[in-house]
């Protein structure tokens, strides 16, 4: 094979040109160009990770804002609920007071009416007694021609009324 047959005459040329061209490859391409390619890749990776971090930060901020908003909303709702409850309570208290006052008025009216009725009845009773007394005296004087004094007539009437 020529690799061995020609060895004596070509080895130095082969070694020399391999070193030259691999040297060019290493120093120009490997050392000169590859780091720049890698740098671009690194820059892109950094950009991507930065963008991701920014997106994450924005998302966190949005979450925080939403959380704050929710808290505020909850507080507002709670406040509103408190206001409603308070209004309800005060309204209930007011109506209760009104009811109580009305009840009181009614009660007094009722009591007065009852008292009036009682008084009317008492006076009516007294009047009936008087009328009955007079009638008794009248009847007795007309029938028996005798005058009955007021006291005995009254006791008789009372007796009759109590039985009646």
């Amino acid at each position, binding site marked *: *094979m*020529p*690799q061995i047959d*020609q*060895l004596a*005459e*070509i*080895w*130095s*040329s*082969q*070694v*020399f*040109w*391999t*070193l*030259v*061209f*691999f040297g*060019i*490859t*290493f120093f*120009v*391409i*490997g*050392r000169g*160009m*590859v*780091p*720049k*390619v*890698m*740098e*671009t*890749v690194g*820059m*892109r990776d950094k*950009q991507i990770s930065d963008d991701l971090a920014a997106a994450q930060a924005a998302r966190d901020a949005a979450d925080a804002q939403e959380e704050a908003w929710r808290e505020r909303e909850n507080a507002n709702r709670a406040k509103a609920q408190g206001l409603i409850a308070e209004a309800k309570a005060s309204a209930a208290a007011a109506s209760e007071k009104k009811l109580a006052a009305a009840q009181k008025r009614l009660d007094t009216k009722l009591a007065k009416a009852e008292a009036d009725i009682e008084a009317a009845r008492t006076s009516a009773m007294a009047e009936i007694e008087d009328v009955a007394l007079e009638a008794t005296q009248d009847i007795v004087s007309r029938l028996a021609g005798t005058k009955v004094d007021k006291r005995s007539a009254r006791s008789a009437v009372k007796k009759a009324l109590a039985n009646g």
Partner: protein
Amino acid sequence: MAADAGKVDPMKQFQVEPLFGSESWEIAGYGIAFTNSAVWMAITVALLWAFVFGGMKRELVPGRWQMAVETFTGFIDDMLEANVGKEGRKYLPYIFSLFMFILFANLLGLVPVGIIPGVHAFTFTSHFTVTGVLAILSFSIVLIVGFWKHGFKFFSLFVPHGTPIWLLWLIPVIELISFMVRPFSLALRLFVAMMAGHVLLKVLSSFVIDSINGGAVFGAFIGVPSLILMVAISALEILVAGIQAYVFALLTSLYINDAEHLH
């Protein structure tokens, strides 16, 4: 190649010829004739430069070409990261150059430029004088890094962990031999793989030519199957071109890992 007289010499493709009347070039008595081998090295470097240059547009959103170049650099970078670790980064220029130089050389040797009259493809990675230089470079880097980082402790590489004391006279010898064999295995593996594939293709092509010259029957029964086999082997050779470049780079990075971390 040698279409004249219908004879194909499968070894002729490995012949090194001085070009441009450079036979007499020499430095200190050593001939440095600019040969067809050197021409193909120059073509390899030029194409590799053009390839990587196309990937230097440094765009944040890469185009196809830039993506291709970044795929290769990223591939080597990942390999070094996996085999050497963080310290592997600084070997990226060397391993990348090595891998791409061998890969382009292997692939260029498979390009059928022979169909252009007077042009002959030459696969310089099929010469152990070339692969030997690359292997010695890799081996030297391992030695220099190893002794630079660890000094004489580098010799502990030859005493693996858990070596029984009564085997201390034998294991280091075996380890030393396996260590010293590395540059040879590196160089020979690539050279043999490249040469075998090209010889096989050339032998098959001589089957095709000779059988067709021998008549239609021979041509149909030997020439056609040989041609089909050649197509299949050409595909295989493209695979081998990539694998051999990868193996060379991978083994070099593994050896560098030994030098960086001992074991």
